[in-house]
């Protein structure tokens, strides 16, 4: 990591399959850290939508499904690209090996570019590719989740699943959401894996990490009496990568490598390099490795943002405790946004990579997320959107 300071694991990053509600055959694959914003862009509500989705005839668009849980923007973009270009992707090659052999270019000896993807790929084709991508070695081990918002899309998916011999790896979860659900779940109480009811209810920020983050930061502020739960050595948060048990009442801390090796050993798979889950050595509760890492990276790599989040939380709590009216909350929110952005900008080493962080951070505030859900504030959103738009385009290009 020579270059710029590494970024924390994004709070949320997803690839989505966009579908025109007017013409269901019109599909679009994209990726975004903030599907809520992105969808509004696609629908022209906000600036920065992809050109392909700009035709009024096809609007509004809907996110028929999202693949979420990417632990890095790069990973998401790679997934997106592979999904968009299944004929070129290495990740899809293994399956098509037999075909690829047939298509070897006799002149160059290199595998021919697989037949140009159909100008318009069908939903089934996309789901096929998605299925095989999720089974590919590169993505099968990741903590990915597929969230279906449309029942008809899910039916196609199911049909395809029945036809495919191989199954998805168990760690990839299928979440039925949207109109797949009989009842709309409570948006505020949804967990990461649970259905949100609609895209707007997705939690795309670090809100979930708030408590975890607050606890770990509080604990590590005074690390003198802390020691690694594995190696029993003192932890030095300023120097080492210290992970904290995500459970609120557990004070377990450990070195990253200590805990990982412990968890890896527990799996009994010597070749495994990243555990997916395990049990906290101290509290013996099950822990999700991605969650720990998300918190760790955010805490270590985005301290200011972490602090801002905590401050916001305090503010919010204070305001809530003050029982202020929603309007007042909006006012505070408006004010809160600005300082965040200001805080974030100086911290940005990489302009390019910052955008989503900003978004994430902004969205981190509970206010925003909730406000977005509850009441739409066009002005604030628009501002945000404008900033994002450039980056979205860049995304598309990639």
């Amino acid at each position, binding site marked *: 990591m020579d*270059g710029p300071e590494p970024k924390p694991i994004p709070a949320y990053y997803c690839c989505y399959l966009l579908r025109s509600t007017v013409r269901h055959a019109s599909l679009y694959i994209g990726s975004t850290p903030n599907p809520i914003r992105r969808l509004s862009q696609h629908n022209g509500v906000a600036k920065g939508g992809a050109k392909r989705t700009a035709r009024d005839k096809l609007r509004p668009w809907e996110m028929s499904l999202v693949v979420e849980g990417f632990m890095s923007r*790069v990973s998401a973009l*790679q997934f997106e690209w592979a999904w968009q270009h299944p004929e070129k992707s290495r990740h899809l090659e293994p399956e098509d090996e037999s075909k690829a052999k047939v298509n070897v270019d006799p002149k160059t000896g*290199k595998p021919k570019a697989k037949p140009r993807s159909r100008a318009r790929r069908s939903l089934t084709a996309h789901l096929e590719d998605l299925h095989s991508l999720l089974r590919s*070695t590169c993505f*099968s081990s990741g903590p990915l989740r597929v969230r279906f918002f449309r029942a008809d899309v899910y039916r196609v998916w199911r049909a395809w699943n029945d036809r495919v011999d191989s199954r998805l790896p168990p760690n990839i979860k299928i979440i039925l959401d949207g109109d797949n659900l009989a009842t709309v779940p409570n948006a505020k109480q949804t967990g990461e894996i649970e259905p949100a009811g609609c895209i707007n209810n997705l939690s795309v920020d670090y809100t979930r990490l708030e408590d975890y983050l607050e606890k770990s930061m509080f604990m590590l502020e005074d690390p003198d009496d802390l020691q690694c739960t594995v190696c029993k050595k003192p932890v030095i948060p300023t*120097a080492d990568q210290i992970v904290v048990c995500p459970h609120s009442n557990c004070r377990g801390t450990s070195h*990253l*490598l200590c805990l990982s090796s412990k968890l890896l050993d527990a799996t009994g798979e010597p070749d495994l*390099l990243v555990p997916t889950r395990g049990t906290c050595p101290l509290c013996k509760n099950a822990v999700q490795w991605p969650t720990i890492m998300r918190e760790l990276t955010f805490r270590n790599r985005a301290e200011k943002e972490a602090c801002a989040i905590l401050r916001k939380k305090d503010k919010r709590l204070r305001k809530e405790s003050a029982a202020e009216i929603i309007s007042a909350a909006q006012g505070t929110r408006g004010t809160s946004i600005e300082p965040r952005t200001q805080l974030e900008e100086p911290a940005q080493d990489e302009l390019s990579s910052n955008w989503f962080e900003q978004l994430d951070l902004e969205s981190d505030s509970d206010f925003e997320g909730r406000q977005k859900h509850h009441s739409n504030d066009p002005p604030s959103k628009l501002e945000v959107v404008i900033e994002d738009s450039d980056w979205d385009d860049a995304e598309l290009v990639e």
Partner: protein
Amino acid sequence: MANTADVIILSSSPNPPRSPGLAAQHEIKAPDTFPRSTTPTPAPAAKAKPAKPATRSRYFATPSAADKNNENAKQPRTRVSRKAAPPNSDDQSIASRPKAKRTTNKPLSIGPGDPPVEDAGTNTNTPKQSKCRPKKTAKSKAAANMTLAGKVTKTGGDPPPKNASKRAKKTTKTDTESPEDCTEIPASEESNALRKDEALHLDEALRRRVDWTPPRETLCGDIAVMCDDNSQNEGGAGPNGTLGFGKSLSDYNYIGNALNPRDLIKKSTSEAPTKRRRIDLVDPLVQPAVNEKPDSFDQALGQDQGVAGKAKKTTNSKPKKFTTLTARMTAQYAIDDEQEDEPTAEWAPEVKPTKSRRSKAKEAAQDPRFTILSPEAAVEFVNDQDLVFGTCSQLEREDSPQTMREMQQAIRASEILAYSEGIRDPPNSPGAMQGPTVRSVSKLTGTRNLWCVASRDTEGSLVQAKAQNVIDLTDQVESPRKDLEKVNANSRQTLPDNWYEHAFADIDPTPEKKALPSTMIKESSASVQQAQVTLPSHAPALAPASDVKGIATESTKGTGSDSTEAVNHQAVGPKVPVMPNYAGFTDAELSKQVSTFGFKAVRGRKKMIELLRQCWESKHGSNTPVCENINHTISQSVEIPKLSSRSKHTTKTRPPAATTLVEGSNETNIAVSQARTSIQTSPQRQTRDKSATSNSTSFLDIEEIQDSEEEITPSPSHVQKHHNEISSRNKAAKGVIKHSLNILTKTPPQSPTKRKVVSSKPSVTKKVNSTSSTCKAISRVSKFSERVCLADISTQITKAVRMQPRSSSLGSRIHPTWHEKILMYDPIVLEDFTAWLNTEGLGLVGEDFEVGTASVREWCESKGICCCWKKNASW
């Protein structure tokens, strides 16, 4: 119409014994020479005349008057046309028209005994014949161009004067009646004025209509008729006759579609009909069986062309060849090849390449004998035959079969020289013939293209020259054959030979040819065989090598340029150890190289170079011994012949060089492996470079030549490749290399010939083959090695990652270990990670090999670790 009529005639014709056919043929040979025909004609004509009127009278109401009229009309014609004929005026007048000639001819040959009988038979047949005749007459009219003036030609507006002559022959066969008919018919044609013949006019009109559009058809019909007649006349021709009939039908269909531009051209170019006719007649007699089958095909072609005799010959030879898509595709270039060859031959007088090629072509023509193989032989050929896979275009690119053959022959010759000198084993080892040479030949099949030429120019390398030299050698060896072949070839057309070669190059021609030359020149063939045999004997390693060859052939066969690969291996062997100078590569080349290593194209030249270096290093370190051995053996086998061929040219240098090569190859298995790796990187170039750059010492001349060629048609990539390869080669300084270099250096003296040769096909083929095949081979090898290595590498990398000590001093938070990065789902920058692995990581595990980013990426993806290139690392 005409066809049908002809067919009928044919049916009737069988009655006349062969002799008439022969006579007819002779006549045909000298159709223009009226005196001959006329001289014999008078008597037969006289005989015929009486019959003629009768026949017509029987069938046609107005024969006599028509005849008279015709005669009247004819006489002036005949007079004009026949200067010598005047005494026979009446008969001659009839004879003057082609049919009349025919009639005369028949009587001449067959006539004396048969005429009355024939007449009777014909009379019985006459109704049909008469019908046919008018048709024929139309044809004959066309033929009239030959014999008579333009009246006939009107109908004949059609091209086929020759056909007409043939028809005339046919008609003669048909009997005396035909002349009458002919006369009548022309009369009818002429005779719009002739009231009596009006009925005939109608027929003619119909015929004309038919004839108008498709002159070819008429030609075909004529040809078919001719063949039939000949065959029928000839005792052995019976099948031919049947074939002819069937052919006429089939041809009728075929003609429309199958007109081959080449054939047309060739035939059109073909000389005067008379000569052709003679040849044709002779050929069927001499080679009835062979010609028969092809006839249908040939006939179709011949018909198209309208040149009966040559067309027949050509057709005969051609039909033997298989008509595959590739053959058709490649056939178009056959002419060019020949042409090219000839000039090249001219260029290199000493080498005599043209002769060899020509002789080869001739040989191919002669080959038809060989073409018919016993089932066993056919099976053998099939087994021995190397399969060339590829699209037509690809095959086209690659060298023509001829060049392949030549190459092989040259290789053999060189082997003979080198090995025979060094070690003389039993001269004739039958097995040697087929094995490697055949394979290589088949692999290289293809025709030259403009592309090939261009490529060769850019690459301009010794290899090409060598190939040419090889050809020369073959020529020398084959010279006796050539003579024989030439004789045969004279009878046969070269074109069909080429066809045949193209079609069968893989299978038959080479072995057959070889066999022939071996018989012809026992010593040479023996020496070649010896050389082949000696190869295994020479090197203990080589004995397994033969087995290895079999194995290797699989890989090489697929590529299609085994020999080239082998050459590459040789060249590479020494070069390999040295990493190619990627800095010298163009971006395109770099990207190619990168792709060769299995990486996606990387932006940025530096990155690509870096990547390539890493890849090369990793590959270099990761070669598996087995593969090396195989390659080694292969390379040895291939190398030796090539080298020997080269050495042959140099003659003096050969034996030592070959021996040294073999020894060196055995000794330097490692070098071979290295070479393999290098081959993977740049096989094509290496071969060329070898020859060209092989070593600066003796190669200066050669190099210069190459450079000049390159300059002529510089393709930046090729040039760069050359330079890179050269540089890499130069860098590599191993004993083996030296050996090869010495050999190579010896070759350079040939430079004059080489220069000439450079333009020749072989170089082109090598280049082409090397490009495609080598790439394939390389990719295969690389894949194989990579797979072998990857299992190891993967586990080792995993170990290394987990063994990386925590950087307690600096603090893992600022400088996380790779495992920590992985744990934190950081995208792994492949360049950095690979660098770390190569510098530290693998050292932790006790491995001294280096990995490339490609393998590292594969490892990452297999672990589900997000990895990316540095440029994309802004996550």
